[in-house]
């Protein structure tokens, strides 16, 4: 038994850990979606976390726990700075501005070769990430988000998502809440980036661009945002699909695109929709 597990682990350990980091990414965008914002900057925040943490490990020799914190704090700080002006924008404008921001980050990475290695990326990042790191971070994030959902903050997010004006008139500081969701989402994405960087030895600017942003969005739309399980389910499916359907590897991007279109057209609430599931199960 143990031997079978060992074999499994030696082949699939990276995949399993990637399931964890993907879940974190999906949860990070869930957070902003849960208060009605489509912010497509989380791939960029992941990149900021990844590069910051990798550089701190490699150049400054920081211990891993500190590196993890920095990997969350750096994108959070950036999110705070750009959040205030950007979050004034609504809906579509916000989505586009954050998309544009993602591009700015990618270009900045390309143009700071001395630090980031530019287009060639950073190589030889020490493999610090242990499975328990990923498990612990994921567990903590899920626990915190769940408690948040069940508190007045969670209710405030939902109210803002439904009707910002009415929410404001309930005494909710809408701008502050949106900023908080944005910053927290950035921190979670940064954590995912840090964990991922110290898992894959190498990071390059193209990993944190538009394609990654779309992939994260696909996971969340696929899973649905009715609760925390949705993004995780979506992350699992999107990550495992290319593995399960071997031929799909090259068509990964196309698959994401097609999934997005199909989900939006036919299952807009996502796969993990407790209400619909209850109805389906109730019948059988």
């Amino acid at each position, binding site marked *: 038994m143990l031997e079978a597990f060992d074999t499994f682990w030696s082949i699939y350990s990276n995949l399993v850990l990637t399931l964890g980091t993907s879940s974190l990414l999906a949860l990070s965008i869930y957070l902003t979606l849960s208060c009605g914002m489509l912010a497509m900057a989380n791939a960029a925040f992941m990149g900021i976390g990844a590069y910051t943490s990798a550089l701190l490990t490699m150049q400054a020799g920081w211990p891993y726990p500190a590196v993890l914190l920095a990997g969350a704090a750096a994108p959070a700080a950036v999110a705070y700075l750009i959040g205030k002006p950007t979050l004034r*924008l609504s809906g579509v404008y916000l989505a586009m501005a954050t998309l*544009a921001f993602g*591009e700015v980050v990618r270009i900045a990475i390309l143009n700071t070769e001395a630090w980031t290695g530019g287009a060639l990326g950073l190589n030889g990042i020490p493999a610090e990430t242990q499975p328990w790191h990923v498990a612990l971070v994921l567990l903590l994030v899920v626990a915190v988000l769940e408690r948040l959902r069940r508190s007045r903050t969670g209710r405030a997010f939902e109210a803002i998502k439904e009707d910002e004006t009415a929410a404001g008139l309930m005494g909710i500081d809408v701008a502050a809440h949106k900023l908080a969701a944005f910053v927290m989402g950035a921190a979670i994405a940064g954590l995912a980036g840090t964990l991922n960087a110290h898992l894959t030895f190498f990071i390059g600017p193209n990993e944190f661009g538009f394609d990654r942003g779309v992939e994260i*969005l696909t996971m969340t739309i696929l899973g649905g945002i009715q609760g925390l399980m949705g993004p995780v389910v979506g992350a699992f499916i999107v990550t495992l699909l290319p593995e399960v359907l071997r031929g799909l590897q090259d068509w990964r991007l*196309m698959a994401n695109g097609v999934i*997005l*279109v199909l989900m*939006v057209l036919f299952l807009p609430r996502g796969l993990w929709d407790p209400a619909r599931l209850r109805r389906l199960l109730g019948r059988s």
Partner: protein
Amino acid sequence: MLAQQLFNALSLGGVYALFALGFTLVFGVLGVVNLSHGAVFMVGAYAALTAVNLLHWPLWLSLAFAAGVSGLVGLLVDVLVLRPLRARNAPHLIPMIATIGLGIALNSLAQGLFGAENRRFPPELLPQGTLHFAGLDATALELGIILLSLVLMTVLLLTLGKTQLGRALRAIAESPKAALLLGINVEGLFMLTSFAAAALGGVAGVLIGLYSNALFPLMGQPVLHKGIAVIILGGMGDIRGAMLAGLFLGFAEVLSVAYIGSTMRDAVGFGLLFAVLLMRPKGLFGSTQERKV
């Protein structure tokens, strides 16, 4: 020399303006941010390339072909994806997400069909010769691009401003429900707009393919991102704003390459975008009018 740079910028700016026009048309009339517009840009370029290489058509015919093919793609996007979403009264972000998916799918398809390497238009096909006037050098290609962009933009502006069709489109842009009550064929005009906008995007794609001498499956992406910056800068849905912002971006990029260096060229648009957004969240020309549903 500054005058030369400014002239060169006219061709780049003209193409950006054409792209932004198509993008803005769809936003203004359909109320949708169509992020597959970058993909139709690429489709146009490849369609023209195919016409040239496989069918051996002359450049002008291939250009028209490209406009038709891209227009068709735009039309299909509207009929197959955007219309069902309209029927459902889906909130604004949903169609946008769908077009993100479409764009990605189209780009991947192109990559699968044509491969990822750069392609070029056969050099013999390009207009040859250089004109010298007023101390400036202008290649025939640049002049052709500038002329075509100008003509198309003028036609578009005149149509929108002076014709019955244009009035109908502007009415829809204000309020689709009201337009419907006035007897305007709203769905039909949605389809027409999608076709025309995509056709413009396709033409822009061919022009950039000629200008930069490079076609590749993801060529629409950087232009799309810049287009986003342009239409936010110009004020969403404002046709003239989009044109001016497109021209402006062309100038900004060319000048930055000349005086700062080419590596930051792509970031110029976004840098400007953020600066403007910080000061005027609705863009340079945007009005505070919300579209009435």
